[in-house]
């Protein structure tokens, strides 16, 4: 099972992180932007689990960090969705560029 080198798993997670980052910057739909953030958080989770399994198996810090990240991501998504719905009520759109009441 541990024939898969750690570096390869880390490469997958890093790629996911930057795909998420790219999505966050290029998408204009707020919900898709949130999804991009979830991708980034998932890549962090993969990192933690992989490090825990390969390098520090005697302690479970990584697993617990992952569990807390998942929990907090849920709370964050709930509040963010509530805000987006509120924004949709007033703007009738969830395009970030439409939310431009304030300018320099």
């Amino acid at each position: 099972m541990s024939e898969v080198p750690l570096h390869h798993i880390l490469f997958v997670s890093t790629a996911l992180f930057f795909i998420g980052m790219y999505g966050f910057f290029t998408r204009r739909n707020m919900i898709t932007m949130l999804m991009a953030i979830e991708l980034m958080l998932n890549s962090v989770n993969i990192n933690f689990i992989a490090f825990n399994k390969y390098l520090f198996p005697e302690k479970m810090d990584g697993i617990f960090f992952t569990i807390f990240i998942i929990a907090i991501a849920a709370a964050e998504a709930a509040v963010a969705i509530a805000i987006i719905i509120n924004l949709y009520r007033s703007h009738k759109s969830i395009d970030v560029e439409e939310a431009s009441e304030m300018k320099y």
Partner: protein
Amino acid sequence: MNEALLLMKPELIVTVIIFILLILHVARENSSPAYLLNLINGLLFINFLCGFFFNREGTLFGDMYVTNGLIVLEKNILNLGMLLISLQATDWLKKKDFIVEFYVLLLTTLLGMFFMLSSNNLLMFYLGLELSSIPLAALANFELEKRKSSEAAMKFIMSSAFSSGLLLFGISMLYGTTGTLNFAQLAMLIDGNPLQLFSFILLLAGFGFKISAVPFHLWTADVYEGSPVAVTSYLSVISKGAILFVMASVLFTVFKPLVETWYNMLYLLAVLTMIIGNLFAIRQQNLKRFLAFSSIAQVGFILIGMSGSSQEATASVIYFVLIYVFSNLGAFGVIALVSAQTGKEEIDDYKGFYLSNPMLALVMTLSLFSLAGIPPTAGFFGKFFLLMAGAGKGNFVLITIAALNMVISLYYYLRIVKVMFMEKNETPMEKLQISLFPRISLLTCMAGIILIGFTTLLYDYIFSLSTSF
């Protein structure tokens, strides 16, 4: 057991207040706003007083929770700011439906900051950070009917979620290279290999977002302008102050081995933050937006202080944040009064403010003088100690740039004073009623600004506490 309760006293008191409010809300649904506000402000005052007694030092829950004299002091500063903001917000909150919810959300962010300050572990630090930022996003949207308010909340939650993503990726790399989450063990294991450098940069970017240092400041002005005044003042004083305290402790404990590296990064951030903050502050028309950029510029100065050697840096940053609480809340207190009674927030609305409201104009002037760092106000001493701490490393280019920026900032702070005192207004603002609570708050701010300027005892006290770092 008793010891443990005393150790966690600040957190426990805040939690108790939160639950008192929740139960009260369920049990007595139709309490009048005035009654609620009196009760809450009374509880917050008790909370503030309790911060001075029965303080213990020690750790709890393994390495999860730590407290010492310095952390208690930082929590007291946050408690003070919380009380002042709550007193200032009474006029605005009286007209609102969701007073209890407002305070529950606000107090939870305070609780999150306390846990963050007391954290000795990256997991607790992250949880505290999220606990202090997620409810704030809901608070930024508290003017439910206003388009600007929900825009502000959206920008805040997006940037805070993105920055915590960066922060977490950094933390995961740090965990991968060291295998621990404990601050003290991390400090021993960090040796500056490329992965740790990368994780440090990600962590710094996460911090940069939260304290709104340039180039991570883009959300700040919109969020400050769109949120209700009470939330804006909370964001600019309490939230920023707490993160600065934690940033100082993370930089000086965890990343101590990399001090040569992060000195240069802080240098660059400080210079950029001061210059960009100042240049944008000059051209603002909305007073809250103006204070947003002025607070960005102040962060630049704080970063200079932080680049000094650990003891001076910590002491000067804490001292400055204390003064910043008084001076910024003085300015925001006046804005909160004006905004709650007239709804006006533009700089042009303040033309001839002195003629109709001389006392408020004086309060505002004194606060702006303190923000600008004009002697003999406290702000001068705060900036002086920051620059002294920064100069300790012998980098006089940085100090020169800072001094030039202080001159630029004088220009725009004095512009507001000129608008209030010299310019004529066809439709002057009416005479405002100042009720008891905001009056107490503004008087405290004025007392703080004037008195701290005349005594150095406080700085010596903070300096002596900082040795425990």
